[in-house]
């Protein structure tokens, strides 16, 4: 199945129990000679900071962004994302099992 990445950006993601996780903001990929493989999806407002490469800008107010929960986005490995309905992506795991990106 083919999915347009640019349209996937900004769509809301639910976890396996239907709980709202956030929006897909960025894709982490690995590129070698001929291919480009998707490794993980970054979810949440903090991923926008990554996307705008604005981390130097938020560094001074990082403390205010209430611990690392806001500052670092959720990172969902490709195995745990179900994209069979591209307009309504779902996680294959629960929100509490998610990891934050470094």
């Amino acid at each position, binding site marked *: 199945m083919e999915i347009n990445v*640019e349209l996937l*950006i900004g769509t809301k993601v639910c976890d396996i129990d239907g709980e709202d996780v956030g929006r897909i903001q960025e894709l982490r990929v690995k590129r070698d000679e001929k291919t480009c493989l998707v490794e993980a999806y970054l979810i949440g407002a903090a991923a926008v900071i990554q*996307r*705008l*490469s*604005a*981390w*130097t*800008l938020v560094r001074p107010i990082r403390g205010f962004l209430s611990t690392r929960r806001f500052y670092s986005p959720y990172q969902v490995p490709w195995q745990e994302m179900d994209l069979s309905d591209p307009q309504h992506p779902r996680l294959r795991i629960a929100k509490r099992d998610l990891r934050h990106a470094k």
Partner: protein
Amino acid sequence: MKKALEITLGIVTSVGGFLEIGSVTTAVQAGAAFGYHLLWAILLGTVCLIFLVEMSGRFSAVSRHTIVDATRERFGFPFFAIVLVGVVLVFFMVLVAELGGIGLSLQILTGIGFPWWAIPVSFAVWLLMWKGTFGLIENGASILGLVTISFVVAALKLNPDWGAAGHGLLPGLPGDDKAKYGFIAVSILGASISPHLMYFYSSGAIEDEWDKTYIPINRFIAGFGISFGGVLSMAALVTAALAFQPNGVEVDTFEQSALLMTTAFPKWGFFLFAASMLFTCLGAALETSLAIAYFFAQGFGWSWSEDLTPSKNARFCFTYTIIILLAAIPLLVGIDPIKVTLMSMALTAATLPLAVLPFLFLMNDPIYLGEHRNGWVSNTVVGITILISFVLALIAIPLQIIGG
């Protein structure tokens, strides 16, 4: 040696870029209506513009991308499309105003009404872009624009009250007519912090193939050039205060502005003003049409350069051709260029956040700028400018309705 020449030309360019129908009209109106009291608005606008222009140049020199390139790359197509619509609409109105300014200058010189000049003037501007190179436009228009130094001479000849002028550099509220005062203040800021200059300058740095070694030069050009432009604008305000206030004249039309320097230079004043407006509006018309074409070309990834033959960057040249053609229409049907000017300045103020907000992100981007990112001084100024721009955006249109 080459760089020394470039510094001179760069400064001249910023002077040419600063003064145009909008800044002169508002400065003259302000001086005639409120004496020195609005000098602070020009000062504030000049300081903001110095920083924004310095950043545009530094961004291009280091990243080899223009501000428009980066706006699309970082913020994506949807945001870019919003900026495109807002900015191009405003630039188009500015272009109409500048072409109108050329037409009005020719009208007072020849007595032939400006609608008759719409076609020949647009054609001349288009031909200069079609045949000319970036260097010709940049340097030619600005050297001719040096005639505006007569504003400074005029102001000095009329013996201004320096104490009162110094007092005017600090913001204050007038006794009466607050709405008109506010409207002119917003217009001055809209005319000074003109985004087309930033986009033009940032594209110019790419056209002239600047690299990191140009960072000090860029700082110098932005600082001195824009300050010089600001001084010229202030001189126009001071001259207006000294020439028009004693006669009780409040300037509403171009015909009235034309009398600006007849007191200071009894013999040449009228022609100096007409020539100043003719050349600065010509320069600004060229810069604005180029800025629109750059905006489209860079945003959509077309090839662009004012130095190539038109068929090598067909879409770029097609864009400015169409824009100039369209800009002639309102003038042809006789829409008052001064009204367009006032409206375009209020709209510039209203859309300023769209143009200024990306600077905060782009100028702190380690991928584009590495160690040449903004320091805290520049960031503070950008922050303040963004605040000002949001305030302006909120009050510009209401003030246009009450005060204009």
